[in-house]
């Protein structure tokens, strides 16, 4: 039994994979939910503007609005450009 457990433990358990995936997607969706309604549209518009100049896939851009304090919100824009030089 213990020998069997030893071999088993070397493989990653599917439950921990499930937990990690859930933590990421749930955090992402909560963030989106708490943000203003215009955020997804803003994200699409920014993506369109950048695409005029550089060809990037949709998942290479992320926009988030972070409430730092009562008076300060920071709009964070993260764009990964493709490797090749243009």
């Amino acid at each position, binding site marked *: 039994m213990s020998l069997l457990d030893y071999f088993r433990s070397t493989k990653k358990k599917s*439950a921990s994979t*499930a937990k990690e995936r859930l933590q990421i997607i*749930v955090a992402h*969706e909560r963030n989106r939910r708490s943000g203003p309604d215009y955020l997804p549209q803003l994200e699409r518009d920014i993506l369109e503007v950048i695409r005029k100049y550089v060809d990037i896939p949709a998942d290479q851009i992320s926009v988030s609005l972070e409430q730092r304090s009562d008076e300060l919100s920071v709009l964070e824009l993260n764009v990964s450009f493709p490797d090749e030089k243009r």
Partner: protein
Amino acid sequence: MAKIIVVTSGKGGVGKTTSSAAIGTGLALSGHKTVIVDFDIGLRNLDLIMGCERRVVYDFVNVINGEANLKQTLIKDKRVDNLFILPASQTRDKDALTKEGVEKVLNELAKDFEFIICDSPAGIEAGAMMALYFADEAVVVTNPEVSSVRDSDRILGMLSSKSRRAERGEDAIKEHLLLTRYNPERVAKGEMLSVEDVQEILAIPLIGVIPESQAVLNASNSGQPVTLDQDSDAGQAYLDTVSRLLGNTVDFRFLTVEKKGLLKRIFGG
């Protein structure tokens, strides 16, 4: 004043109707006058789970439209005192439930009952929104499985933004996590999310854990809410859940693998 409890989940097939029937029956068994309302318009099933499908004459939509009164429509359970069912309509009209109509019916029920259990349909469409809109408390039914947990989180967002309490700026709906179809053996093997995992992700208080159990299918086959099967693990777990809903502190059971005795090992079971 009646307490309105919505049983909801987002995802379908996780045990909302089973849980509504079991919790409603448990509350009535504890002496509280309870009505279970089926909000799943077009896909009525609470009647079948409660074993009263042949006694349905009028339904929720008939009452809203003034075609029948509550007294004619409510079905009194034959096994448990203080327990009534308000069946859903089988109409295909999606807009059969209006906010005003539902409010009128709930107000009338509130005069007579201590607990109103709203059995929500799956999804986040109008029917599910209507079931949670007037709630004071919510039982979020979740399976230890990725899609169910994600959908539960979605519903938690709805509870805190789309309910009457949220719109009026009143105290938030009290949320409870009910984990169903829990299999401690698979959790021990690392093949299933544990109670702690789900709680950590959803971050709401745990009201009950119902083990995956043969008793649940047996109960629905025969139209008996599983809380009436008091010898079964699931029945006992639901009774514990009801006791916690009533404010009691009850230790959680059925969370760990049951050690099999020698006889069980030999003969199975």
